[in-house]
């Protein structure tokens, strides 16, 4: 019996090796014609989630964004903000399992802008655009109330600590680099790194690679002490929202009317987003900074040029993110005899019968794209650093305690620290007669 099977196998093996009928779509064994009343079972194809439910997702997003404006501006109510945040966490996080999200949609949008063959689902596009438009009108209420990643971090923030300004500024540069890299790799069609390295999605799905879960757990642990570390130092979408929020029509104000400079709110923001009144600079500092500013502005093109050069320089190694580039390298090395043996990918490539020349020219085209992208990436990062330095040497005039336009996540925590807020709520009488609002 066994011999019969091995015999069968070796004949079949010979057939496969010499004719590869299964690969060509032919069959080795003709399907039988049954004499009895045997009916062929159907191959089950359980469908995916209803397309219709996507409209539900978009509606929930719009509703949540609108409610966020209501709670942040009209009600000025941290409780409402918190509740909305929890609902979003449950819906977009645990129910929708973190996909699709606005942050990851950066990848889809970049790919669709630069890759003609890619068709972006409307869902991803809307998730990308809607929070941006809301931010242009109302600041980052998306971050405070809707984003599930932000919500998860907000939830674990139990012992907020202050992060020194300079440290915060430097760490924030990471987010710009991350955004640049994410667009770069997505635009070349190589990877969606935002999705790949999303630290919290493992919690939403309650499964995932162990490395990412540990990574996410570390983030949450840090997040107990440092308010929303991902949002402040890494989130690439947050970078876009920061800039749009600088221009927003409305902005979060700590006080409902006027700042009485009581300093009560000073330490209330766990995200370092409250800006204090600035002092006049001593003449000496002023002169030094003025000179520095001049030098920096003159230096900006140089900094940018260095960035462009560096971006082009790293593009070669960066292109190995792309699977096709890696495969081409591998095949080249195998053919040149510089590596021993084969890997699954090279075996699969050779079995597919595709031409090596095509693979090489593909890889070269991808590498060329990486080079162009690298110039932009490097230039972008360098410009960000240069502009940051310039901003640091300018003194902005501020007389009140205000929520920074860029950094405020519209969480509503500081409201209740302001005595004017308590006057507004009627908890206390105003010093000048009361109830005059």
């Amino acid at each position, binding site marked *: 019996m066994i011999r019969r099977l091995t015999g*069968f*196998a070796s004949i079949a093996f010979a057939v496969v090796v010499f004719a590869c009928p299964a690969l060509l779509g032919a069959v080795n064994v003709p399907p039988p014609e049954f004499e009895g009343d045997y009916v062929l079972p159907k191959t089950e194809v359980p469908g995916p989630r209803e*397309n219709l439910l996507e409209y539900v997702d978009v509606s929930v997003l719009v509703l949540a964004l609108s409610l966020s404006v209501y709670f942040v501006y009209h009600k000025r109510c941290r409780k409402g903000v918190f509740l909305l945040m929890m609902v979003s966490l449950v819906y977009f996080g645990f129910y929708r399992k973190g996909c699709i999200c606005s942050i990851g949609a950066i990848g889809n949008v970049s790919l669709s802008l630069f890759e003609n063959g890619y068709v972006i689902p409307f869902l991803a596009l809307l998730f990308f655009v809607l929070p941006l*438009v809301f931010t242009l009108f109302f600041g980052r209420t998306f971050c405070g109330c809707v984003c599930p990643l932000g919500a998860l971090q907000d939830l674990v923030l139990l012992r907020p600590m202050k992060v020194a300004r300079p440290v915060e500024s430097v760490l924030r540069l990471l987010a710009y680099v991350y955004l640049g890299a994410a667009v770069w790799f997505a635009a070349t069609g190589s990877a*969606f790194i935002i999705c790949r390295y999303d630290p919290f999605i493992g919690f939403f799905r309650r499964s995932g690679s162990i490395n990412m879960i540990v990574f996410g757990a570390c983030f949450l642990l840090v997040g107990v002490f440092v308010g929303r570390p991902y949002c402040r130092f890494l989130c690439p979408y947050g970078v876009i929202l920061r800039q749009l929020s600088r221009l927003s029509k409305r902005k979060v104000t700590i006080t409902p009317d006027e700042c009485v400079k009581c300093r009560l709110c000073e330490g209330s923001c766990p995200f370092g987003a409250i800006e204090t009144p600035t002092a006049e600079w001593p003449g000496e500092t002023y002169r030094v900074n003025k000179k520095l500013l001049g030098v920096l502005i003159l230096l900006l093109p140089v900094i940018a040029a260095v960035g462009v050069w560096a971006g082009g320089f790293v593009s070669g190694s960066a292109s190995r993110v792309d699977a096709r580039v890696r495969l081409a390298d591998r095949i080249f090395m195998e053919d040149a005899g510089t590596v021993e043996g084969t890997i699954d990918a090279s075996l699969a490539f050779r079995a597919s019968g595709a031409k090596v020349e095509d693979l090489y020219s593909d890889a070269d085209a991808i590498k060329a794209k990486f080079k162009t992208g690298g110039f932009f990436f490097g230039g972008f990062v360098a410009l960000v650093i240069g502009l940051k330095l310039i901003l640091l040497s300018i003194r902005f005039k501020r007389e009140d305690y205000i929520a920074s336009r860029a950094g405020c996540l519209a969480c509503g925590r500081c409201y209740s620290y302001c005595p004017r807020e308590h006057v507004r709520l009627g908890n206390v009488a105003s010093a000048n007669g009361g109830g005059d609002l």
Partner: protein
Amino acid sequence: MKDNMSRRRFLRECCWGGALGAVGLAAGFAASKAAGKDFVWQIDPFKCISCGNCATYCVLEESAVKCVHKHAMCGYCKLCTGYYEPEPVALDTAAENQLCPTGAIGRKYVEHPYYKYSIDEKLCNGCAKCVKGCSAFGNGSLFLQVRHDRCLNCNECSIAVACPSVAFVRVGVDKPYLIKGQAH
């Protein structure tokens, strides 16, 4: 001072309009080729080399990829090379003779000399051992597919990243499967 303020405001308005325009432009450009339907991941069974990554790389504990059986292509072989170990002790359904590590394939006599093989999806882990056996020596009627009742439709499928033969493709939700021998 007042003049200064209004100039600043004007500048601000211009920037605001510019930003809105930029967002609109990017969105419009992307929208010009956006699709009203969503896309899902699927395995092109003709590209799959049965490497086994599907069983381990899915973000789900139990992979969303399972083996399916296109019965119309099956030879109903008595000696199924997708079912039996290359050197089985005996040609019966005892566990030691089976290729499938989880015993997910059922074997039933139909009529002489034909046997029917069926996959118990609850047990299958998508390891592709049977697929390898069937496509090497049989008709290739066993192959892997992403099961959409299980798949989370990740924006970037983790298996697609790990797939050595680039067999994962995005397909429209209206035709979410790539079943062999069927037009798509």
